[in-house]
Structure formats: C-alpha cells, structure tokens
C-alpha cells in the first residue's frame, strides 16, 4: 500500500504522461457523447473534443512520451470518426445497439476465455517458451470439461462442474506436458510444436466428440448443472452496476482472482522473479542456481491448465454445449491480447476487455445495422495487434529468451 501511495505521490500532474492519458480520455469522450444516454446530435462537439485530444497527444509526443501520445492522437481521430458516423445514424438504432449495462456484461463474458488463455500464455512465455498452442489448449479444455461434467453428473449431481473443471485442467496440462517435453528437453522449435499441438487437439477432440456424441451433439440439459452463476441479489437494485455484476458466472469472478494473483505472483514474489529471469536470461538464472528446466516445465504445464479452464468456461459455463473446433480462434485472440498487453497482466487484461468489447459490439450491431458490420468488428483485435507489434502505439517486445531452447552446460 505504501508503495502505491508513494508512486501516486510522484506523479507529475502537468507531465506529458498525464496529458497524454487525458488526451486518450478525451478521445473516448468524443465518441461517448454521441451515444445513448447523452446522444448529442451535432457532430461539432465531438469534432472539437477530438481535436483537443489530438493536440494533447501531439504535445505529449513532443515531450518524448511517444507511446501514450500517439495513443491519444489515435483515440482523438477514432473519436472524431466514430462520433461523426454515429450522428448520421438514427437515435432508435443507436439505442438498440448501445445499452451500456448489457454491453459491458457481454464484454465480460467474451473477455473471460481470452483472459484465461492470455494468462496461461503469460506464464509460458514469461518462462521463455513460446506458446502458439493456446488455441489447442482452450479447445482441449472445452471438450474434456464437457466430457467429464457429463460423466460426473450421474454421481456428483449439481457439483459436477468441479469435476468438469478438474478434468479440463488435467487435459490441458497433459497437452502442455507434450509441449514442455518437446520444447524444453528435446529442443524442437517451439512454434512448430505449438502448431502440431493445435492440430492434435483439433483432431483428438473432434474424433472423440464424433465417436461419443455423433450427430445428436452434447446433451441439452448441461444448462442445469454447468458452472453456476453467482447471484448477488442485494446488488439488483443498484443503478448500472446491478445488471452488470448481479449475475456473473463464477468463472468471471475467478478470472479476476487469477489476474490479481498472477500480478502479485509474477512481480512481487521470488518465484515470479525466477520465472521472469529464466525467460529473460536463462544462463544468468542458471548461474545463480535456478533450475531453468524445472521452472520452464512448471510454467508450461501450468499454462496448459489455466488456458484449459478458459475453454471449460466456454463449453460448460457459457454456451453449455460443444462443437468441433468451437473455439474458432479465441486462443489466438488470447495470444494477441498477450502481445498487445506487452506480456504484463494488467495491460493484457485491458487488451482482453478491448477485444471482448469488439466481440460484444459485433454481437449487438446486427440488431440495427445488419450482419456485415458486426463481422468486420471481429477482425479488429487482429488488426490492432498487428499495429501494436508494428510499433505505432508503443512497441511490443516480449521476453528476451522466448523461443530459444536452453542448453545446460
């Protein structure tokens, strides 16, 4: 706590960083005022606020705060663009799409599998092992979660979801163990192993799924005993917060616990320091007596378990069924969020929220504007990530030793 207040005490309120952040906020504001509930109908105001945001951005870029500064410029431009666009749209259409509380609740639902995938990837890549198999781990979790929950339902009743989560995590860890053996001990290229595991996961889950459930699909009554929602009845009447937080799935709450836990583990404990040192400079870590192989094995296997939990949320917490290749790139969006968030937990979480918001918006847009614009929004996370690694909004540089097998001498 003292560390926190200490850091706040050192903020230079007229420094370029703060001005840049204000610029970003202004850019968001430029868009926000044209949306319900405010719904300004004149484009002039959002253009003015957007220009202010751009000036704030330019000012902080000129004071060497490039990352946040360019972010503010981009936010200003986007604010003007979308703000003007929205004023051309009818108020009824706008209010059909923009219902903030349900949009935010949907954002949380879409962001949750992403955050599990991204946190899983964070442990793996922080230890110096690239993980492009997140997609496969998610899919494995999704399938084995639903398989074990159906099996456990007959004897565990309404607690079957505990078994389901356990089964999913174990399956994910099994898959990750292959990744660990191949990339750490056998020193095969980590990206190739990851690609192979994606195929294996796709093939194996599809194979067992067809064999077990075939054309009829998974049973429809999983809704009754899937991962429970947490009903907070006392929140029900609170303005705005009630509809968002009142009825969230248990896994969403767990994801926040995981997120905060990960932040403290990776940056505030000696174990986290070891993890990071192995990912940045394994030889140095080895010299001071850290077992590089052991740390990497633990990190990679844990990564598989965590990512699989995200898959389990998807199948037994959210849609309550399974289909072949049901993750459809969610694991890769998780990887994108990790890159976008520069391998840091909180920024990664912000990225998953942004990407989740894209999906939520893509879901809502068709109600008023037809399918096709929603589809384009699905591509936005990937485009943003390309822009991020290109360095336009602050360069994304990962752990130094990621991708390289370590040879003990």
């Amino acid at each position, binding site marked *: 706590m003292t560390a926190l207040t200490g850091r706040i005490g050192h903020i230079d309120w007229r420094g370029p960083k703060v001005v840049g952040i204000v610029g970003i906020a202004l850019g968001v504001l430029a868009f926000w005022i044209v949306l319900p509930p405010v719904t300004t109908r004149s484009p002039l105001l959002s253009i003015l606020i957007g220009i202010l945001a751009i000036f704030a951005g330019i000012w902080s870029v000129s004071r060497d705060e490039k990352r946040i500064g360019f972010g503010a410029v981009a936010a200003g431009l986007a604010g003007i663009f979308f703000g003007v666009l929205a004023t051309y749209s009818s108020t009824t259409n706008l209010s059909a799409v923009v219902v903030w509380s349900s949009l935010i609740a949907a954002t949380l639902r879409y962001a949750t599998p992403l955050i599990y995938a991204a946190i899983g990837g964070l442990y793996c890549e922080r230890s*110096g092992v*690239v993980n492009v198999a997140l997609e496969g781990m998610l899919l494995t979790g999704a399938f084995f979660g639903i398989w074990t929950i159906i099996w456990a339902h007959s004897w565990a009743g309404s607690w079957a979801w505990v078994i389901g989560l356990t089964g999913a995590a174990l399956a994910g860890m099994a898959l990750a163990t*292959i990744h660990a053996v*191949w990339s750490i001990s*056998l020193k*095969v*290229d*980590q*990206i*190739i*192993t990851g*690609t*192979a*595991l*994606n*195929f*294996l*996961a*796709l*093939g*194996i889950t*599809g*194979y067992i799924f*067809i064999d077990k459930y*075939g054309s009829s699909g998974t049973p429809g009554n999983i809704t009754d005993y899937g991962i429970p929602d947490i009903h907070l009845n006392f929140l029900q009447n609170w303005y705005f917060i009630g509809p968002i937080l009142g009825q969230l799935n248990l896994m969403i709450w767990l994801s926040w616990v995981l997120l905060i836990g990960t932040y403290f583990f990776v940056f505030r404990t000696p174990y986290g320091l070891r993890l990071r040192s192995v990912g940045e400079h394994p*030889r140095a870590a080895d010299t001071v007596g850290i077992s590089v192989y052991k740390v990497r094995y633990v990190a990679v296997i844990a990564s598989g378990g965590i990512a699989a939990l995200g898959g389990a949320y998807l199948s037994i917490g959210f849609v309550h069924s399974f289909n072949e*290749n049901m993750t459809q*790139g969610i694991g*890769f*969006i998780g*990887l*994108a969020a990790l*890159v976008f968030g520069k391998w840091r937990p909180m920024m990664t979480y912000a990225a998953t929220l942004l990407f989740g918001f894209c999906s939520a918006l893509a879901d809502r847009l068709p109600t008023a504007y*037809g*399918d*096709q614009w929603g*589809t*384009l929004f*699905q*591509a936005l996370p*990937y*485009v943003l*990530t*390309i822009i991020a*690694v*290109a*360095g336009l909004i602050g*360069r994304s*540089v*990962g752990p*130094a*030793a*990621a*991708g*390289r*097998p*370590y*040879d*003990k*001498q």
Partner: protein
Amino acid sequence: MSDELLSEEFEETPTPTGPLGGSSPQQNFVSRYGSKAGGALGPVITTIFAFLMAGIAVAVVGKNPLKVYRSIFDGTGLNFFAHFGSYSIRLPFSTQHVWFWWDTSSIAAMNLQQTLLITTPIILTAVALGFAFRCGLFNIGGQGQYLVGAYFAVWIGTSFVNLNPFLHVLACLVIGSLAGAFYAGIAGLLKATVGAHEVITTIMLNWTAIWVGEWLFGQQGPLQNTSQPAIPISNTIADGAKLPIFWGPKLLQGLSIGIFISVGMLVVYWVVINRTTLGFEVRAVGFNPEAARYGGVSVARNYFLAMAISGLFAGLAGALDITGWEYQIGQLDIPVSQVGFIGLAAALLGRNTAVGIGFASLLFGALINGTSGRQLDPSVFSPDLAGNLTTIIQGLVILFVGLNLTTLVSGGVFRRRRRAT
C-alpha cells in the same frame, strides 16, 4: 557437429529483436528441418509412425485399422497405377489417339483426379512455407495468403466478363498471386523494418483474412452473389476465367491444368533456391543472418523478398483453386479451409526440398481425398471420424518430424546432452 556449434553460439548472444525473442531460433530450425541429412529415411519413419498411432485410434473405436486404411487407399485413386492394360487416349488439340497403358476412365482414375485436385494447392502452400523457411522465416500465414489470393481471383473472375479467356484466366492468377505477395509482404516489411516477429503478424493476418472474407462474401457483403441475397456465396466466375480441364468430366470437377502450374512452380522453387543469386542470399540469411550481413547481404531486403515470394506462391494456390475447380467462394467455406496449414505439414515432412514437398503434398492430398465423405464408405469408417483422423495424423507428423526419430531411438539426443554437461 557444426549445427551443434552454431546453436550453442546463439545461446551466448541473445539479441532480442522481435516480440518473440528475435531471429535466433531460426538457426536451430533451419538446420533441423531444412537439412538433407538423413535423407528420406526420417520423414518416412515419421509417416509410418503417425499412421501407426492413428491406427490405434481407429482400433479404439472398434474398427479394423487395416480394413480402414485399405478403404482410404482405394478412395485416393493411387491404385490407378496398379491397373495396367491396353487403352488409348486422345492427344490434346487433335483427333489422334495413341496407346496408353492405364485406363483413364476407371473409378480409380476419377478418384485420382480428385486427389491431384486437392494436391495442387497443397504443393504451392508448402512451397510458400519452404521458401520463407529457407530464409529463416516461419510463414505460418500461408492460410491467410491463400485466402486473399482466392478472394482476388473471385473478384477478377466475376468482374471482367467479356475479357479474352486467356487474358482473363491469366489476370486471375497473376492478381491473385500478387495479392498473396502483398499480404505476406506486410509481415515481411514489418520483420525487415521494426523486427516484428513474423509468426505473430502472420497469425494475425490469417484471422484478419478470414473475417474480411466472411464480410466480403456474407449476406449484403460487397462480393456476395447478385441473384440470391439469402445465400452467403460469391458469384460464379465467368467461363473465360476457368482453367481448361484436361482429364475427367468438365461438369464433375475434372482435373484442370492447374496441377501442371503447381508442379512447374516446384521446379521454379528448386531453380530459384539452388541456382540464382536471390536463392543464395535467401539461404545465406536463413543459415546465419549475422554472417550474411558481414558478407554484404542485405538481411532486411531478403526478409521482405522471401516473405513476398512466399506469399506469391500461397496466393497462386488460392487463385488456382478458384479458377481450377471451385469457381466461387462461400462464406461458410472460409473458416474451415485448412490448405495453408496442410501445406505447412507437407513442407516440414518434405524437409523443404522440392522433391520432398512434391511427395509429401501428394500424401496429404491423397489422405484428405481418401477420408472425405464422397470417397470413404460410411459402413467401413465414418467419414466424420476419418476427417479428424487426418487432422491427428497431420499433427503427429508435424510433432515428430522435428525429432530425428532415428537418433532418438539410438539415444543420440540424450547422449549428446550428457556429454555436454
């Protein structure tokens, strides 16, 4: 021995240039996947091993693996070559007939046409991956480049309806290839200028291509067909934009001359890599970027060129599929298409050599055709299961081809580590 020394040297000099940790690991994978050491033995053992493992999966669901494999093999049409006899075929562009020793109208022949049809794009996506690989780049975005090539081929093919047929089909192929080159070039440019890791960028470009395609050909999309607004599919390309079909029925997916273009590109690949300055520089950069830089080779330029040329091949694959037999593209086909990734498996299995890629592509093309719903008898094995079996085999092949199984069996990998400590 030299491989070992080089990879150890890289351990000592961490040069973080990209988000995944720089260009160093390529040293390892170029020597591991690109060398001819061990020849065809390693890949053959890998393939047999993968089929054995998949055979276990078949046995687990209570089917006889040998029977299933036999049925898949019959569906591939490769048994065509076992049917000798005395037949005649018509010479192209004439009415003359000449003696031929295989029956070109048997069922096996029709199956073989389908296998070769599927093999055509796999060869090209495999060459695409192989070319980038030789430069030390892992172009995992073959799928996206393939799709972009297909989109542009559909666009050109449905647009200029009254064009001269030869020019029209040529325009489809050239613009499709260039679109693929441009798309991969984005990743190449980012790698060359800011060092963004090509794996991250190409994965993102893949998914961007998929969603943009769903938008283009979906309902009310700009390239959706004009006659049936409820069906999310493109218009059929003009007859002039279709490649000539030389074997099999014209209306039932006969084999187009695309297979010759594809095999021709294998030759081009071999020549460019082994007999040109460009190929030499690309290989030099792939083998050791630092040494190449000291030798006066522009690493950045070669990164960009290798990616763009790689995308050229993948884009051509997409354009050939459109002009050769698909003739249109449906929204629902886009996310399930796996051609780029099968090419990846074929390139790795073929160790990035032209001949190896040819055989590996044929293997995967045959496997996909043999396990498809239209070839495999459901009473022998469900095609749905068989499709997943193909994916499993593909995964196993990629997983095990990187291990040199022969050395692993003799304990080579583990022994080497003990000696090093």
